[in-house]
């Protein structure tokens, strides 16, 4: 039987199609119309797998754009989907940390990916991909370049939690002649500190698995490990944990 999981995030839309034997995945920018993007994901996954729409038993959508999808049979929150997706790949996972475009969350999980407890960032963008995106723009860089460009040997601290204030703070640091690499390392530490505090408040259980797009940034990964003082595993296919979880949950529903 064929199931599709769609994770429509604020920046990227991820789709996973599961048949009994194979797994297909597709990544698209979410753009301005989450509904349209979801449709494109399904079509793309079907093309990739050579299947027809009628072969698909169920579609489960997650992510902030989940409600905009007419094609979805059910919607499930990102919390449950990330927990399920990570637990499938790492059965010994106890904590999932997901840093996405506009949310960061820490999920305590038990057997089979059952959600025991969770915490999410507040209304503001501190400790999320959006924070890094705005800072990258201020440094005239692409967000994908940040991880490689940092210089962790420099001890730069970004104090502002607010994205807007942090932006002025780095403008000030640049004016003082602080290097870009040092500032980037400071930004990564800021995200790491914020997320680690949230995780410690919830209670960290081994093993800690990092998912979401920001997990691809080696600097954040390093900073998070340092701040958390736990070893962290970056999920294989970290972008698709939520979508994979949604596809698995689609297969487990009555």
């Amino acid at each position: 039987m064929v199931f599709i999981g769609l994770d429509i995030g604020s920046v990227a839309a991820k789709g996973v199609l599961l048949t009994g034997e194979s797994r297909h995945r597709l990544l698209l920018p979410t753009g301005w119309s989450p509904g349209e993007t979801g449709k494109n994901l399904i079509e793309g996954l079907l093309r990739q797998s050579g299947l027809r729409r009628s072969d698909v038993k169920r579609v489960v959508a997650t992510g902030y754009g989940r409600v905009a999808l007419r094609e979805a049979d059910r919607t499930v929150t990102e919390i449950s989907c990330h927990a399920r997706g990570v637990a499938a790949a790492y059965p010994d996972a106890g904590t999932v940390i997901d840093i996405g475009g506009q949310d960061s969350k820490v999920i305590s999980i038990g057997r089979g990916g059952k959600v025991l407890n969770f915490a999410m960032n507040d209304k503001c963008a501190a400790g999320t991909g959006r924070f890094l995106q705005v800072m990258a723009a201020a440094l005239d860089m692409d967000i994908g370049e940040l991880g490689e460009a940092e210089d962790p040997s420099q001890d730069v601290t970004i104090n502002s939690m607010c994205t807007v204030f942090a932006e002025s703070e780095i403008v000030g640091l640049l004016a003082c002649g602080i290097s870009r690499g040092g500032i980037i390392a400071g930004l990564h530490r800021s995200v790491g500190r914020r997320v680690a505090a949230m995780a410690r408040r919830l209670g960290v259980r081994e093993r800690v698995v990092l998912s979401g797009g920001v997990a691809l940034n080696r600097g954040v990964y390093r900073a998070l490990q340092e701040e958390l003082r736990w070893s962290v595993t970056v999920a294989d296919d970290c972008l698709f944990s939520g979508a994979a979880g949604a596809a698995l949950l689609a297969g487990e529903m009555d």
Partner: protein
Amino acid sequence: MLTELLEDFWAIREKNVIKIKELKEQGRKVVGIYCTFCPNELVIAAGAIPVGLCGTRDEPIAAAEETLPRNLCPLIKSSYGFAVTDTCPFFFFSDLIVGETTCDGKKKMFEIMGELKPVHVMQLPNLKGDGLYFQLWVDEIRRLRARLERELCAGISDEALWEAIDLVNRETRAVKEICDLNRQDPPALNGLELLAVVWSKGFSADRSGVVDMLVRLKEALVERQFQAAAGKSCCCPGPGREATSVPQWSRPRVLLTGCPVGLGSEKVVRLVEEKGGAVVAMENCTGYKTLELETGREHDDPIVALAHKYIRIPCSCMSPNQYRLELLERMIADFNPCAVVDLTWQACHTYNIEAYAVERLAAEKGLPYLHLETDYSASDREALKVRIEALLEMAR
């Protein structure tokens, strides 16, 4: 029948604006009240009308922020905003406003509110028990009695006070009996209906009339539960019922605790119900927080009797506040919730900090727990939705 009874509660506020206006014209006095700590019995015994004041809507907050700081609790800003923009009819009709020092924000806001109307502030001790703290509270209730007598030009006799005590005790019992019907599964009332009943009653000019309404509603609800048990249709579309099509019996039961909620600030209750949960009980000011508290007859002095009742209210301004946790523990046993939602209005430090103890209690009981810090605005609806939905997924 039941539908009409519930609609009567939804309509209390509107109807009573006109009623209170008429009574005012006939010379009756009105005392505006913000908080459950105010002994309504004294106002009733003075022959005046105690009435709840508006403070649960977002609309007047912008006006309040012209005077008050932005990072203040929405309840304080809304209360002041309604008063300063003259959009709360009950405030308009009030001859005297009674406030309490339940938090620093309110205490200082009342000083400014005093420029609009006569405001009497009761100094509340933050410690329960005997000794000087209790004596202070007794003296404060006496001081309120004297102020009411002076301001309303009316004597308050002990006899009238005992009568008023009986009336308020009867009301407390009637409300509790309705709330307790939600111990059953499915609950007798959905969260919005429950809120409409417990919150709206405070706006009525006719206290014994409200008790009658509550008694009639309870009978009708028992009748409906009886019919449902007998297999007859129990579907009763009324205000608040249209929110979602999930049947009542398959909804995860949610216990709401924390800051006060009223119509206008019911967004968390509404979201829980929209997302398929059922708010079966509310441990907050309009809800269960005061429902176990009746004024006892064992004291000769009615003022001392009142002081004993009111000082027990488990508001987070009390330190320590053990009774709140005991009450919650009892409610968890009685209402059998699948999850606990703890609501803190932005900048309410005391409830925000007590969340630590409530979370621990929920964990001990094995219940999923969600602490939400928010305000009256709709800006974080989507963020709240994800959290509430995830909580309900955990509870299922």
